[in-house]
């Protein structure tokens, strides 16, 4: 992890011959890339995808406002679902480590069930059954409920793994000092565990944001659906490909921003000297957390 991003990544500095080799390979790769790019452009042009008609909507204020409202609705549903998922996740994690056995059992079943379900299946199910069972909440809430059920369970597992990764001595010391279970959690365990889990939590939140696009099937009028509607618009010459590219770029931008903010937060925390606990930075470390706490049957880290 600490290797310099430039220069040889594996092994020592390269010698003169290896360096020549690297230059040759670099040149070849660049030539191949240029050829690919050229082919792609030719392909786009010969299929009429580069004509002005297909791109004029891009500078149309009305059209862009239409797209941005979609983005706003995506962010709106994501923020609400994030807040609820974090809450549900915290409750489920507490349930899993609660001293009462029935509570533990229920929390475990809920977590394992929802983590094993494809989110798309949950969303379809909610969208089909809620309106016919006197719960006509609307697409926004169907999507929020689906996202919360799935991500709440995943985050619950992340929280549990983070708490379990803490040294037992911490809990024992707190109890020896006479703290109650709840005080031990609130004052000793949770603050330390939380700091370790920040990267895993953020990657799950990025996943949540991406998954809001599944609201397409409800249908919830979010960024992707608006992009598709725009792409099928006859008056704009049906810029399907172009609209999807803009949608992809917007999603990527929002996710980059989210990751960047989280990264800042982490650095800030470390600089202010409170981040002495090693952070859980990626899949590997999450796996280590999992392993240390007797991994449960079904685990997924940030991929769905």
């Amino acid at each position, binding site marked *: 992890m600490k290797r310099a991003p*430039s*220069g*040889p*990544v*594996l*092994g*020592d500095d390269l010698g003169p011959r*290896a360096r020549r080799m*690297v230059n040759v*390979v*670099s040149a070849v*790769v*660049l030539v191949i*890339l240029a050829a690919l790019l050229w082919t792609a452009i030719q*392909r*786009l042009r010969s*299929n009429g995808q580069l004509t002005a008609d297909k791109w004029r909507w891009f500078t149309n204020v009305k059209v862009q406002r239409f797209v941005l409202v979609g983005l706003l609705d995506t962010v709106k549903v994501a923020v609400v679902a994030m807040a609820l998922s974090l809450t549900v996740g915290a409750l489920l994690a507490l349930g899993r480590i609660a001293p009462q056995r029935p509570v533990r059992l229920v929390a475990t079943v809920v977590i394992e069930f929802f983590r*094993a*379900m*494809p989110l*798309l*299946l949950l969303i*379809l*199910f909610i969208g*089909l*059954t809620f309106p*016919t069972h006197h719960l006509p909440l609307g697409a926004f809430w169907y999507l929020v409920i689906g996202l919360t059920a799935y991500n709440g369970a995943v985050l619950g597992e992340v929280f549990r793994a983070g708490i379990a990764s803490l040294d037992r001595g911490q809990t024992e010391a707190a109890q020896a000092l006479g703290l109650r279970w709840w005080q031990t959690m609130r004052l000793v365990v949770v603050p330390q565990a939380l700091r370790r889990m920040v990267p895993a939590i953020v990657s799950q939140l*990025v996943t949540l944001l*991406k*998954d809001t*696009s*599944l609201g*397409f*099937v409800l249908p919830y009028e979010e960024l*992707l659906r608006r992009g*598709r509607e725009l*792409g099928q618009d006859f008056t704009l010459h049906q810029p*399907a*490909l172009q609209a*999807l*590219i803009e949608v*992809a770029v917007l*999603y*990527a931008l929002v996710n*980059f921003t989210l990751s960047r903010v989280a990264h800042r937060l982490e650095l800030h925390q470390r600089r202010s000297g409170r981040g002495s606990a090693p952070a859980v930075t990626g*899949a*590997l470390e*999450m*796996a280590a957390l*999992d*392993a240390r706490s007797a*991994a449960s*049957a*079904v*685990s*997924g*880290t*940030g*991929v*769905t």
Partner: protein
Amino acid sequence: MNAVLSHLGDYAHGMETTVVLTLVSYLGAFAIGLAVASCRVSPVPPLRAIGTLYIDVVRNVPLLVQFFIFFFGLTKVGIRFSPFTTSIIVLSMYHGAFVGEVVRAGVNTVDKGQIDAARALGFTFPAVLLLLVLPQAVRSVVQPLGNVFIALIKNSSVAYTISVVELTGTADRLNSELARAIAVFTGAAIGYLVLALASAFVLRQMEKRLAMVR
């Protein structure tokens, strides 16, 4: 529950499609992941840039958007695959980025002294990578690679949106035929649970055999 029991054949068929999608895509994702991870640790700057760009772009764009770009977007430039083929390509590419990240993390666990030793013995960079680094890297990240597999089972459901009739598609189709959403979707949920638990079991066995703990 009769609705489910009288259509067990449909479910079996849907599950089969889900399993085939998952297995084939995982092979593709694994190949792409190894290639991307190799690019990211190679001494050739353009290859490193390509690896980083690939991972950053693919991981930050929703899977469904990638499905639509490949299915509805590429037809516009005359590239057209069947829904099933599209699903395999997109699922492979998407999870390839995650496999790439996992393998790269594994590469970092390989002792630098070994690499230096191999270089000193005259092994070229590709040889070091293929013979020494990647085998060890993969074996040190068996569990996260398993997590990608389980995620892939779930994500294969997105193929439903381009009309591949896998397990989720089966449930949706049966529901429009029978109008019994709760029973029909419970059937699909059980199917996914079985798949998840079965693969978790197999993965744990593989982990016991393959995993290297450092």
